[in-house]
Structures are given as structure tokens and as C-alpha cells.
């Protein structure tokens, strides 16, 4: 509800300006006098000052409730919380057609300066981690992945040696010149053109999915002066050493894992189980008939055992555990 007599915005801004100056500890007698003058100059100023005091009090009620000793934890929580999924991004997810799941636990690591130069990041099977890099980019590693950072004066290069990463490129304000952001894999070089994208290193090729912006693609064996293909937002490409060709993901949302879920639409069960196998140890077998069944939905990755256990309720299949690490899926 608007207040009965909300003071003019410009007066309120000025009032907060004074509040800050008076609190800054360097407020001398001259500042005090100037403030008194301002306050008396106009009834609107007095009203604005009263409003500023109200806001100050409301804030003290909240901030004062936080313990001093553990103040560090409160600050960290609010900072880290803000760096994770933003409200804007959450709203975007809620506004698309597919079902979504809540955010998952990311381990957000801020690196010390000496670690930034030649850092290696990796995850174990079933683990996912996310980092804010020195240039402001966000790097997320999916299960069983490894990446090396080679940032220097001319480029921001990430070398993907195993698994899958999602990158949200930062503005790189720390650097005087605009350094390109690149991802190198065995198959070639990808360059961000202001963007958000996922790169996955498969056995035979690299899979690129662009969520926002665009990415330039350069296969490893392309001739030096050859024109680079550009992948636009919403497209998926397979990059081999010799060429980049449009591809599809067989019903898998390529960015689902960054929200901790397998998001699939009409995917073959065989492909789904192969995908699931990336997140857990052991073998998942599937008989050929069952492999052709189709599946849709959002499956959380934090408990892959439970995820397997629900399959018989959505498909006519049976799950047999031969050992803890050997699972067989067959028609019922």
C-alpha cells in the first residue's frame, strides 16, 4: 500500500544521501550544519528525512536480528545465495512449458588469486560443482568431468579433458582488453560470442548446445583460414575433428543437469539408462525390447537409486539387482 503522503523521490534520495554521509564517521560540524540547513529548507525534506529514518529502523529490525559472532555466515549466505540461480533465471524457467525442479546444492567455490592462474577443476562420478571464475564467468561441471583453466593476457581458455561443462560467460571487467572466452576439446575449438552454452565430450565427438547467444566452432582439422561455423541459441551441434554438423540430443534437455535433473521428452529408455550410467558407478543392463520404450519427465539426479526404482511405475519393466553394482532392466 502506498503511504498516505509519500515524499517526492528526489527528496528521499537526498535524505538517504545525508543519512549515509552522517553515518560515515567522517561527518564534521560543517556537514552537520549543512544537513540541518537542508532539512529546514523545505517541509518536503523533513518528510523525506522521516521516511529515511523509518526505512533505517525497518532495516535495523532485520539486520539487528542477525548474530554478531556468526555475522560471517550471514554475509556468506546472502552473497553465495545471490550468485546461484537468480530470480530472473528462475522466473524464465517457470515460464517455459516443461516442468522444472528446484535448485540443487551447488558447491560454489571462489578461488584465491594464486589458484586462478592454472587451476584444474574436476568432479567425481555423481558429483556436480559450480564455480565463479576470476573473469566473472560461471563454470559448472557435470558428473565425472575435468577442465583446465588457461587464462592469460590474450584469451580465457578452458580445456575440457573429460565429461561436460556449462559456461555462462562473464563480462571480464578485470581485463583491459576484451579477451575471447574459448573452450578447447580433443575435437576442436569453441569460442563464445557473449553467451551461455554446454559442451560435452563424448567417446567419438563433442556435443555443443547453445542456450543463449552464439558460439563459433572450429574443428581441429579445419584449414587455417576456413570460415568458422556459428551455432545459434537453441541449436545443438556435433563437433568432430573434421566438421561440425547439426545434431539432436535424442530428447534430452542439454542444460537439465545444471538444475540437478535429467529433463527428457520422448527419450528411448536405452538412451536414458546410458545417460543415467554417467551419474552412478556400476553397470546398467537393458534388454533390447525394453530399450525401445519411450519416457518423458523430470528426474532428479540426487538419488539415482530411487530414480531407477520408480521406472516400473511408469513403464512395463522390471528392475533386478544382481549385485549392488549390476542392475538389469527387462520387460515385465
Amino acid at each position, binding site marked *: 500500500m502506498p503511504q498516505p503522503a509519500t515524499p517526492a523521490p528526489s527528496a528521499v534520495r537526498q535524505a538517504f544521501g545525508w543519512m549515509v554521509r552522517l553515518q*560515515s*564517521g567522517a561527518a564534521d560540524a560543517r556537514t552537520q550544519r549543512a544537513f540541518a540547513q537542508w532539512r529546514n529548507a523545505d517541509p518536503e525534506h523533513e518528510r523525506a528525512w522521516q521516511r529515511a529514518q523509518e526505512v533505517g529502523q525497518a532495516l535495523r529490525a*532485520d539486520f539487528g*536480528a542477525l548474530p554478531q559472532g*556468526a555475522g560471517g555466515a550471514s554475509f*556468506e549466505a546472502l552473497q553465495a*545465495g545471490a550468485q546461484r540461480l537468480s*530470480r530472473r533465471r528462475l522466473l524464465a524457467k517457470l515460464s517455459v512449458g516443461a516442468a522444472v525442479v*528446484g535448485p540443487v546444492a551447488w558447491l560454489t567455490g571462489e578461488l584465491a588469486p594464486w589458484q586462478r592462474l592454472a587451476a584444474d577443476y574436476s568432479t567425481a562420478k555423481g558429483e556436480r560443482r559450480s564455480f565463479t571464475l576470476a573473469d566473472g564467468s560461471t563454470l559448472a561441471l557435470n558428473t565425472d568431468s575435468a577442465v583446465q583453466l588457461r587464462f592469460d593476457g590474450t584469451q580465457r581458455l578452458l580445456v575440457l579433458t573429460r565429461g561436460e561443462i556449462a559456461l555462462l560467460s562473464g563480462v571480464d571487467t578485470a581485463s583491459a582488453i576484451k579477451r575471447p572466452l574459448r573452450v578447447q576439446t580433443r575435437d576442436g575449438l569453441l569460442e563464445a560470442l557473449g553467451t551461455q552454452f554446454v559442451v560435452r565430450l563424448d567417446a567419438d565427438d563433442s556435443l555443443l548446445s547453445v542456450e543463449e547467444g552464439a558460439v563459433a566452432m572450429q574443428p581441429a582439422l579445419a584449414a587455417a583460414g576456413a570460415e568458422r561455423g556459428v551455432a545459434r541459441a537453441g541449436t545443438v551441434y556435433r563437433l568432430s575433428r573434421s566438421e561440425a554438423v547439426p545434431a539432436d540430443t535424442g530428447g534430452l534437455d542439454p542444460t537439465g543437469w545444471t538444475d540437478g535433473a535429467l529433463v527428457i521428452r520422448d527419450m528411448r529408455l536405452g538412451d536414458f539408462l546410458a545417460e543415467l550410467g554417467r551419474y552412478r558407478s556400476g553397470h546398467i543392463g537393458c534388454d533390447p525390447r525394453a530399450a525401445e520404450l519411450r519416457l518423458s519427465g523430470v528426474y532428479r539426479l540426487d538419488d539415482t537409486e530411487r530414480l531407477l526404482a520408480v521406472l516400473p511405475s511408469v513403464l512395463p519393466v522390471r528392475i533386478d539387482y544382481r549385485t549392488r553394482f549390476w542392475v538389469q532392466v527387462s520387460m515385465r
Partner: protein
Amino acid sequence: MSALPPPASFAPAVESLYLAHHGWLQMWLRKKLANAADAADIAHDTFVRVLASRHRTRIAEPRAFLTTIAKGLVIDSWRRQEIERAYREALALQPEQLAPSPETQLLIVETLARIDRLLDGLKPKVRTAFLLAQIEELPYAEIAQRMGVTVRSIERYVAEALYHCHLVLAD
């Protein structure tokens, strides 16, 4: 999942809104959330919010109106989870004897979530400067040094954050 009955105190306009759209809203949320219990809670909270908003005029697009509120509530609950997780992670890095009691921790998380909502939309630098001033109670000169900007900039950031809070609190 049976629908909760409308609270007895519902004003007639809200009651007809409830009867006409509660079931639809809950279905809409179920499709979004893949969790029936959350969908039921948020559908209910949406109407509680409508009631509290003293919105008495006729609503031209009731479903758009309801989904806007519901989306806000879903995001609030996700953000709260994120804040709680971040808070527990931060606590885990501190000596155990400094950790507040579980009850106090819960109150702190509530407060942090409220602050997070209040500060939503601030630029990162403004937010950081403001939090360092309000939570850590650092002098502006020290914040300026930490962030590598002038004291004057910090004063501007803090004033901007305060003005933002004024706008949100007045809403």
C-alpha cells in the same frame, strides 16, 4: 490430492475466485513443480496472498493474476532453500562452538530470506557494499579498500540500496 476448503473469512470476491480457479491453479503448479504437495501448498498460499493484498477491484485476467503471484511464491521458496543451504555451508566452515542453536538458525534463515527478497534486483556491487556495511558493520573506508573503489562510491552504493529498500518497503 483433495483441495483445501477456502478459509471461512474469505471475502465474496476472493471466494468466487477461489471456487473458479483454485483447482486449475493447483493443476498448473503440478505441471510446473512435479511435486503435488508443494503445488497444493503454493496454491493455498496464493489465495492467502490475494486476501492479504486487499485487492478488492474486479480482476480482469484472474488466471494471469494468480499465476503471477504463484510464480513469485515458488521462487521465494526456492530462494529460501538456496539461502538456507548457503548458510549451513558457511556455518560448517566455522568453529562448532560458534554455531547458534537450531531454533536460532531457523530464525536467522527466515531473516536472511527476507533480506534476500528485499535486496532482489540490486546490482552486485551495490548489494555487496550494502551487506558489508549492514551485516559486517565495516566502516566505509574499509569496504572501499576491500572492493577497490573510492569511499565516495561506497556512499553512493549504500544510498542507492537504501533507496531501493524504501521503494520495496513502500509497496
